């Protein structure tokens, strides 16, 4: 591998890891917010327990989203300084707004939500998780604005050897953004819904306790996945027109892009049919059909796989361009970058993040296996002494 291949591999590995966790963050955040709101409205304990259990899954997953995201943010300067040199005046703006106007608030409010149990007034605590959700989706918007600019550099002209921002409206209304954003959001809801469905199926299959808890969760997961799949597939088809207009060779140039697209569509279409014609119509009975639960568990990773394939298609299909028609990846690489530098950082980032990703998934599985009674998030409340006695008796 030469230095360019290594730098591209580093971006692909860290980017794929990042999205594996981000897609679930985006999918679970609104579900946890809805659970928390239902608890605040009804006062029913099952909603508080659902908020804390799925909230803990969400928070554990969130950790790797942050850690991989840090590497993504700094990697532009490390390996791709040609990008900020040539297009930083345009491409940097949405990333700056994302960090200041979205992630800064998301992280602050998430800290308040995690550590605010039994401390914040009820409705302010609920407001925190809604603000976390809102700012997470704002983050997704700004990141997709930046990505769409790479697909189709709208709103900028070249002046004096680098791009200058001339039309903010065109940057924000990029045709490569308009269908891609709902596509990503749909995929996130789909993945979040499937995690609720698969984990609940596991609990219903292996244990007899907590039936009400996991029956509710499984149904919520299937309904969310239905909405997500309709949004994903619908907006997916709407992307072919702008791709044909701005990147006509997208799926012909590099076989990896075509393969990624093909398998993503195969997985997405088949799963959507299963959700639409099997899971959704039987959602009332599904929690009782024990024979079906292993199948639901096996289906859980598929939206994640499809999401990674989709990103491969979108990004690899742009080769050799980093900014379509303007800047190649070779020209965007930091001048003077050596194979040794990229190889060392690739091993460090991929090794550390890879191990932590495995540990993170193991901890999510552990949370699911131990069940709602053993959740640490929001523990120590007044209703908790009976919970702990219940957990110890298992």
């Amino acid at each position: 591998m030469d230095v360019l291949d290594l730098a591209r591999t580093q971006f692909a590995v860290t980017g794929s890891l990042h999205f594996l966790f981000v897609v679930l963050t985006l999918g679970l955040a609104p579900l946890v917010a809805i659970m928390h709101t239902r608890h605040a409205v009804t006062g029913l304990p099952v909603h508080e327990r659902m908020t804390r259990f799925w909230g803990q899954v969400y928070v554990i997953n969130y950790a790797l989203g942050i850690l991989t995201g840090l590497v993504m943010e700094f990697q532009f300067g490390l390996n791709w300084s040609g990008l900020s040199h040539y297009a930083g005046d345009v491409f940097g703006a949405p990333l700056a707004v994302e960090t200041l106007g979205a992630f800064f608030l998301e992280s602050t409010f998430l800290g308040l939500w995690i550590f605010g149990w039994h401390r914040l007034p009820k409705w302010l605590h609920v407001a925190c998780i809604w603000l976390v959700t809102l700012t997470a989706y704002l983050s997704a918007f700004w990141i997709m604005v930046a990505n769409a600019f790479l697909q189709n550099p709208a709103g900028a002209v070249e002046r004096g050897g680098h791009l200058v921002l001339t039309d903010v409206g065109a940057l924000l209304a990029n045709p490569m953004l308009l269908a891609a954003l709902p596509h990503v959001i749909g995929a996130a809801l789909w993945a979040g819904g499937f995690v609720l469905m698969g984990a609940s199926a596991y609990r219903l299959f292996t244990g007899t306790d907590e039936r009400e808890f996991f029956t509710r969760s499984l149904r919520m997961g299937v309904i969310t996945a239905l909405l997500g799949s309709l949004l994903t597939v619908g907006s997916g088809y709407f992307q072919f027109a702008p791709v044909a207009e701005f990147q006509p060779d997208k799926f012909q140039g590099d076989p990896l892009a075509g393969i990624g697209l093909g398998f993503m569509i195969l997985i997405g279409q088949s799963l959507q049919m299963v959700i639409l014609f099997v899971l959704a119509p039987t959602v009332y009975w599904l929690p009782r059909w024990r024979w079906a639960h292993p199948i639901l568990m096996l289906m859980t990773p598929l939206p994640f796989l499809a999401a990674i394939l989709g990103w491969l298609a979108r990004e690899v299909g742009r080769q050799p361009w980093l900014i379509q028609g303007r800047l190649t990846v070779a020209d965007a690489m930091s001048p003077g970058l050596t194979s040794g530098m990229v190889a060392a950082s690739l091993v460090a980032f991929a090794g550390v993040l890879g191990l932590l990703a495995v540990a993170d998934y193991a901890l999510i599985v552990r949370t699911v296996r131990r069940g709602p009674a053993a959740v640490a998030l929001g523990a120590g409340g007044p209703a908790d002494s009976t919970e702990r006695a219940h957990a110890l008796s298992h």
Partner: protein
Amino acid sequence: MDILWLGALALLLTGYFALAGFDIGLGMLLPALGGNQEGRDRVVAAMAPFVLANEVWLVAVAGVLFGAFPAVEGEVLYGLYPLVVSLLVSWILRDAGLWFRRRADGRAWRAGWDWTICVASYGLALSWGMALVAMAGGLAGPVIGLPGLAGGAVVAGLFALHGWTFVSWRLPGQVTGARRTGRALLLTACAAAAPAAALLAALAPWLLAHAAPDETLSVLSVMILPLTPVMVGAQVWVWRTFGPRRAADPTPSFF
């Protein structure tokens, strides 16, 4: 307009040192202050509610660099390559330690992550000290060397002092045996931020010469200025909610 964004950059970077300085410092002191498992749990619980709100200042620094000073972003991060990698790896391991330490049972699991937090916190402080020295030298010489290590030792010392003061303020008399006022905490915060402030003052003319054009800065200002009160309010809310005079921490803490 470029002065405004230089001010934002300076505020965010010094703010990061003043805030994250104490959680990094406490991470370094974790085995010394904590003693046994229960002691370390208490130290981590004291800083835990602040960590997310603190570290995000550095994420914002990188965002402002990319948006308002793109030429600087590429040059500085690339110029500091090995230090940025060690900073990121340390940051990742420190945070993983905090998120993971209580997620499984067993003393070995938690003790292992506590040592990871300690070593990675040293990694963060040393990387920062070396990075500041290298930037002060105009990225001319090798980024790792004796002056850099001296800078790292200074930053590590300031962070440790700041962390010690923070825990003596939040849990007065309980961890260090000492009690510190908010005023003392403010003083060590200024001390922790001083190296970054000095560097920014020295680099200000160079930064101004490399700011993005006014078209870009205007767009950034229109997007961000209306949100500034919310950002300030959220940070103030964290300190009001988790300050020392509030109810005792729920146990166990999530981190």
